[in-house]
């Protein structure tokens, strides 16, 4: 490890790894520091990602793909199941990853491209000069050293501290943190190529419960509920255990994890002088699905591209780095976050009865193309009672 780099990347998840890989490809010197002793562990993720989203960053490899998804199903509060099949029979729409291996692969690619990597190395404080981020004080096995950098990329996840230490408020509102728990259950009867989402206030208040296949007879069975709805006796684990006992009484857990997923709007500003914030740390998780892998990789890549540009021009101040903030906000990803935030806000306010009515109507539709717009349009035809509400939602999406 050197004492100065063009880029210092804090965090070794998908955002940090892609940032480091991109930096190396751009000819920048970079170092990725991960506080945990191993890349990829522990996992805090349901591991789902769309096929196109994934292939934009890395070629799918069976070493870290647990299962291929061809369809999805949504289960209404009353138990009605609505199936969503891929437009083309047999087409892969997405993957359930093996994040432990996937994350290692991405960091390995960053290292191979030329980035330095350090594990069990914690960024313990930023190095600041006149309000400008100049690097970080890092700790490794009790040894403290200073690493300076032209730009620091904060990719330190949902439990992000770095940006906060630099003076940025990253607090997630209680109602917008998904409190989550997940088992990897094995020896269970499932459709190995379809994800299932369970909705309803009794199953997962203001969130959802998922079954994401990991193989023929195993799946990530997990839940996210709003922090607002969480409390003693009714926590994520309580809801999940109740579901598992009822649905998969003979399932055997081989892993149990917990975690938080933000479903708020992204940070008001994701840059500061000498600092770029990416991925979960920037709160760029998709507020509707809670999916964060793609958005993390997208912001990680953009962060290094903008940093490279700014370093070349000799200006890494906030104004110059704003190209990153503006870049992701105006991207398809940024627009999709904003749109899905509205949809999420609409959905969490629906009663179970309304949700049942919508899903009953949607279950009658044969949609070859599944987009939010076509769904809303078709739903309004089938269930005229929903016109007013859905119309308001559609208007907010325009």
């Amino acid at each position: 490890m050197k004492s100065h780099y063009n880029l210092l990347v804090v965090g070794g998840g998908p955002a940090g790894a892609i940032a480091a890989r991109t930096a190396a490809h751009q000819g920048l010197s970079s170092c990725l520091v991960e506080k945990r002793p191993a890349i990829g562990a522990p996992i805090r993720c349901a591991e789902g990602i769309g096929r196109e989203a994934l292939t934009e960053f890395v070629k799918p490899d069976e070493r870290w793909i647990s299962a291929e998804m061809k369809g999805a199903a949504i289960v209404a509060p009353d138990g009605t199941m609505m199936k969503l099949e891929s437009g083309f029979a047999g087409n892969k729409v997405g993957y359930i990853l093996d994040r432990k291996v996937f994350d290692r692969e991405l960091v390995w690619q960053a290292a191979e491209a030329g980035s330095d990597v350090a594990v069990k190395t914690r960024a313990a404080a930023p190095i600041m000069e006149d309000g400008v981020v100049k690097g970080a004080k890092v700790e490794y096995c009790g040894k403290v050293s200073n690493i300076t950098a032209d730009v620091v990329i904060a990719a330190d996840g949902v439990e992000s501290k770095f940006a906060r230490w630099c003076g940025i408020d990253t607090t997630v509102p209680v109602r917008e943190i998904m409190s989550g728990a997940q088992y990897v259950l094995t020896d269970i009867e499932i459709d190995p190529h379809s994800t299932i989402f369970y909705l309803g206030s009794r199953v997962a208040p203001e969130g959802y419960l998922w079954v994401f296949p990991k193989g023929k007879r195993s799946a990530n069975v997990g839940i996210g509920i709003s922090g607002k709805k969480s409390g003693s006796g009714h926590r994520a684990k309580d809801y999940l255990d109740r579901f598992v006992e009822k649905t998969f009484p003979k399932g055997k857990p081989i892993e149990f994890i917990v975690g938080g997923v933000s479903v708020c709007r992204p940070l008001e500003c994701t840059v500061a002088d000498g600092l770029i914030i990416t991925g979960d740390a920037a709160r760029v998780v998709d507020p509707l699905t809670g999916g964060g892998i793609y958005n993390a990789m997208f912001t990680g890549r953009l962060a290094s591209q903008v940093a490279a540009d700014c370093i070349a021009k000799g200006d890494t101040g906030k104004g110059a780095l704003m190209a990153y903030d503006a870049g992701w906000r105006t991207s398809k990803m940024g627009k999709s976050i904003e749109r899905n935030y509205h949809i999420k806000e609409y959905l969490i306010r629906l009663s179970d009865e309304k949700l049942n009515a919508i899903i009953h109507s949607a279950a009658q539709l044969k949609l070859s193309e599944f987009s939010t717009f076509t769904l809303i349009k078709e739903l309004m035809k089938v269930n005229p009672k929903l016109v007013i509400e859905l119309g308001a939602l559609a208007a907010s999406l325009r």
Partner: protein
Amino acid sequence: MLKVHRDICGYCGCCVSVCPEGALELIDAYLCVEKICTSCGICAKVCPLGALEVVDEKPL
């Protein structure tokens, strides 16, 4: 004061993200509580496992 039940904690960092004071930090598998904690209890509410508890301060 805030008590961390370390036998229950899943060291996931959910609590860290909601702390309005920035008083929590997850160092690998160890949740640290700094003195600036106001015992507001927000973290205890959102914890997926119930590993955090606001208890009455009792001097030793």
